[in-house]
C-alpha cells in the first residue's frame, strides 16, 4: 500500500535549511560524521582480504562516478550517458602520457582536459533536452571511442596501451576514496551555494528560473563541467589498476548505464543517495555472481526487476519511508500509552 500512496506523492521536498553563510552546528555534526565514516572506510584495506579490497575499490569507483553524475543530473533531470566518454578520456590521457609526464601530473591533466571537453559539449548541447539529450550523450561516448580508435590506426600506435604505475592495492583505494571525499565536499559546497540553489530551481521549473534572473545555461554548463571533471579524474586513477587500456574497455557504454542505474537506484535528490545505490547494488551483484556463476546474467536481471518494482523511490525513499513510519509508530504508541494511563 505504501508504494502506491507514495508514488502519488510529489517531488520530495528537501528540508529548508535556509541560506546561511556560517556553518551551523548541525552541519558541523554531519561533517564530523562524514569524516568518521571516511576514516573507517580508509581502514578497510588494512583489515580486509584482497577480495574485500577489490569490492571496496569497486564501490569507491562507482560512488565517485555516481555521485558526481548526480551533481549534474540530479537537480537538472538531464540524464547523461556520457560518463564513459570522460572516464575513458581520463584513462587515455594517463595511458598515452605516461612516458611524457609523471603520473600525478597526468591525473591533473585528465581533470583539466575533462573540464574543457565538458565545457565545449555543454555549450553545444544547451538546446537539447529530454530523451534527445540522453541519446546525444550516449552518441558522444561512442564518437570519442571511434575517433580514438581511428587515430590509433592512422598514427600507427598500439591499440592497447600498457599502464604500469607502481601502486599498492591500498593506494588505489585511498586515491579513489580521496576523490570520493572531494566529490562529496564539492557536492556539499554546491548544495549550500547560490549555484546549488539555482540548480534546484532549474530542476523544478526552468521558466521560473530564468524569470528569477538565473543564467540557466551557465549554471548547467558549470555543473556539467564539474561532474565530468570528476569522471575524467576517476578514469585517470583507475587506469593503472587495469594495466591495459583499450577503447572497447575504456569507453564501454555499459559503464555509463551502470552509473546512471546505481544513482537512480539510490536516489538523486540527496548527496548521499548514490552511495546508497552503489553499496547494495555492488554487494547484491557480488552475491549473485559469486553464488550463481552459471546464471549470473539471468539472476542479475531478475534481481534488478524486483528492485525496480519493490523499491520504487530508490533506497533513499525506502529509508525515509521507514523513518517516517517509525515516527508515526512511536507517535501512536505514545498516544496509546497516554490513553491507557488516562483510562487507568
Amino acid at each position: 500500500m505504501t508504494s502506491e500512496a507514495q508514488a502519488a506523492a510529489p517531488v520530495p521536498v528537501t528540508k529548508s535549511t535556509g541560506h546561511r553563510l556560517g556553518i551551523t552546528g548541525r552541519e558541523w555534526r554531519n561533517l564530523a560524521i562524514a569524516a568518521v565514516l571516511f576514516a573507517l572506510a580508509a581502514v578497510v584495506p588494512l583489515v580486509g582480504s584482497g577480495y574485500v579490497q577489490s569490492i571496496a575499490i569497486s564501490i569507491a569507483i562507482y560512488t565517485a562516478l555516481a555521485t558526481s553524475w548526480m551533481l549534474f543530473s540530479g537537480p537538472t533531470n538531464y540524464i547523461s550517458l556520457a560518463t564513459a566518454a570522460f572516464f575513458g578520456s581520463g584513462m587515455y590521457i594517463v595511458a598515452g602520457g605516461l612516458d611524457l609526464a609523471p603520473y600525478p601530473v597526468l591525473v591533473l591533466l585528465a581533470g583539466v582536459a575533462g573540464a574543457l571537453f565538458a565545457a565545449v559539449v555543454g555549450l553545444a548541447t544547451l538546446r537539447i533536452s529530454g530523451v534527445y539529450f540522453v541519446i546525444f550523450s550516449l552518441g558522444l561516448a561512442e564518437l570519442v571511442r571511434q575517433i580514438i580508435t581511428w587515430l590509433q590506426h592512422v598514427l600507427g600506435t598500439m591499440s592497447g596501451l600498457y599502464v604500469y604505475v607502481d601502486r599498492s592495492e591500498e593506494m588505489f583505494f585511498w586515491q579513489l576514496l580521496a576523490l570520493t571525499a572531494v566529490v562529496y565536499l564539492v557536492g556539499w559546497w554546491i548544495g549550500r551555494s547560490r549555484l546549488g540553489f539555482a540548480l534546484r530551481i532549474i530542476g523544478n521549473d526552468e521558466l521560473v528560473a530564468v524569470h528569477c534572473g538565473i543564467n540557466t545555461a551557465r549554471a548547467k554548463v558549470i555543473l556539467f563541467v564539474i561532474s565530468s571533471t570528476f569522471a575524467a579524474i576517476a578514469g585517470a586513477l583507475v587506469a593503472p589498476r587495469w594495466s591495459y587500456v583499450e577503447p572497447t574497455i575504456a569507453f564501454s557504454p555499459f559503464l555509463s548505464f551502470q552509473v546512471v542505474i546505481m544513482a537512480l537506484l539510490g536516489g538523486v535528490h540527496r548527496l548521499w543517495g548514490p552511495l546508497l545505490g552503489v553499496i547494495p547494488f555492488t554487494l547484491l551483484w557480488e552475491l549473485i555472481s559469486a553464488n550463481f556463476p552459471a546464471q549470473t546474467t539471468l539472476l542479475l536481471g531478475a534481481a534488478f526487476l524486483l528492485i525496480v518494482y519493490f523499491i520504487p523511490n530508490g533506497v533513499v525513499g525506502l529509508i525515509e519511508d521507514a523513518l517516517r513510519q517509525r515516527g508515526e509508530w512511536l507517535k501512536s504508541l505514545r498516544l496509546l500509552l497516554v490513553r491507557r494511563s488516562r483510562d487507568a
Partner: protein
Amino acid sequence: MPDSPALTAHAVSKRFGGLVAVNDISFALAENEVLGLIGPNGSGKTTMMNLISGALRPSAGEIRLYGEDIAGIGASRIARKGVARTFQLVRMLPGLTVLENVTAGGVFGHARRWGQELNDYAHALLQRVGLPNAGDVAMTALTYIDQKRVELARALAGDPKVLLLDEWLAGLNPTELKTGIALIEQLRAEGRTIIIVEHVMHAIRSLCDRCIVMSSGAKIAEGTPRDVLADAEVIRAYLGTADA
C-alpha cells in the same frame, strides 16, 4: 509625464507561424504608473507580457526599459534589470519549501541577497502577502490562492522596478480582492511601475492610471479606464457585434 519613461514598446509584433499574436503594439509607461492591459481571451495580453518579461522574443519592434533596448535579450537578463512577473497559471517550485520559493526570487535577480538577510527579507515578504507562518510548509500543501500569494512574494523578492501581474487577482473572493487591491496600491506607493492584465474590471478601475485594450493582437483603445470601458469598439470586442 517624466522625461524618460520606465518602459516603452515600439511597434512590437509577435508571430507564431502564420498567427499574429501581437500586432504592432506601441505604448509608453511612465515611472510609477499602473497600466491595465485588458481585452477578451486570446487577444494577446499574456503574449505581450511574455514579450516584456523575455519569455518570448518579439518578431519585430523594440521594447525599452529606461531607454535600454531589452527585446530578445533573454528573461534572465531582463529580470536582473528589474522586471519581475507572476504567471497567469501559477508556476510554483514544488520541490522547494514556501520560504525557498520566495528566496528564489531574491538571489539572482535585480536586488540580491543571501544568507540570513535573505531569509529575514523573505519572511517579511510572506508576512506582507498574508502568509506569515508558512515558511517551512511544502508548496503543494498550499491552496491555489495561497500559491498565488507566494508567487507575488517571489516576484517582489528581487525588489523589481517594473512588476508584471498576469491575472493575479483572478479567483479571489471579495474580501481577498480588497486586500489584494490594497497590496498592489502599496506596491505602487513604493515607487514601482506596474502592468496588470486583469478581467476584474473593478480592480482595473480602482488601480489603473491608464488602460490599453487589445483585441486579436492589436491595440484598439487606450486611455483612462473610464474612457476605454465606455468605448463602443471595446464593448464590441468583448461582446461581439449585435448581429454577429
